[in-house]
């Protein structure tokens, strides 16, 4: 599974990246969380808001930073859909 955080490099995006790393670790997953600051990539996904949490290239959370538990839920929800 590929987990990415995409953002414009702003403080909020950085925060989502940090919290996502914690969430992934707490879930006992070995995946590396990738941090992408190229905005064109967000646009290419058809999105315009940042930050974005993407699981296997599909947006799981867009435009806001929730807490660790919510991020875990979003990752689980996205991975069961695949």
């Amino acid at each position, binding site marked *: 599974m590929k987990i990415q955080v995409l953002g*414009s490099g*702003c403080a909020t995006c950085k925060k989502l990246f940090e919290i996502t790393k914690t969430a992934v670790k707490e879930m006992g997953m070995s995946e590396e969380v990738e941090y992408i600051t190229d*905005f*064109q990539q*967000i*646009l*290419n*996904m*058809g*999105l*315009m*808001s*940042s930050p974005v949490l993407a699981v296997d290239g*599909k*947006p*799981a*959370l*867009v*435009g*806001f*930073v*929730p*807490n660790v538990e*919510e991020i875990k839920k*979003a990752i689980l929800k*996205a991975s069961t859909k695949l």
Partner: protein
Amino acid sequence: MNLFYPIQAFADWLAFTVFKLTPKSLAGEAVNFFIFDSLKIFILLAVIIFIVSIIRSYLPPEKIRNILARKNQYTGNVIASLLGIVTPFCSCSAIPLFLGFVQAGVPLGTTFSFLVASPMINEVALILLLGLFGWKIAIIYIISGLIIAVFSGAVIGKLKVESLVEPFVYQSVAHGSAELPQMTKRERIIYARNYTLDILKKVWPYILVGIGVGAWIHGYVPTDFLAKYAGSGKWYGVPLAVLIGIPLYSNAAGVIPLVSALTEKGVAMGTTLAFMMSVTALSLPEFMILKKVMKSKLILIFAGIVGTGIIFTGYLFNLILK
């Protein structure tokens, strides 16, 4: 019937009983005014920003883009301006919005209508206007703001200035629209709470300073002191107010309480409106950021058209609101 009566009672108690200031004295009135206004504004901000954020979670920019991409030029200008009201705007989101809209095929004129309305008609400015000037001025501000946004976008659309947009913008085409993950009720509440706290954290010092200086002016500066410099009879008042407003965007929240006090002292209402519109709609940091996606000439055209609209509005209301 005054919704703010309990706040006034609290401000009276704090100023006259706790601080032992004399009612009707200059210091007493200034302190009382400061406590009442700051409490009123912060309560309004917290409640209204939260409600607007919940609405906003149903209208993300992706959805707005999909609506606008399907509209023709003029309907697009109107809808873009209306949608601009509910969207958050800071200069950091100008580029993503611009690229996202243009690459999805939203006409340039429609995109500009949105770029004008979104920062000009935002909930923070509206709450401050409502709280400090009353609902009539707030409505006048919204309606003239919408007209300026529609008009500016329509003019830019007519000018066919696509060649002044940096070529790379048109090289990528946003492929369709991704399906947005459905937000749960809980997520919407988290989003709205975070957003409200973020905004309050960002604006509170400006608002307190603005209201503080405003309270001082309210108590100590004689009424009509400014009338001879900035009253409605002075032709240069409006353009000067617009020029001064351009570099002040980040302080919009502090500027409005300050200006409300100046209006009491004789600055004409149209001049005040023009000043506030210039502070919110014409922002120097935003212009610098837009340079990444368009030529300076287009930024000048944009600022020129919006500025002209604002100056016209200022003169108009100096004539009407005597």
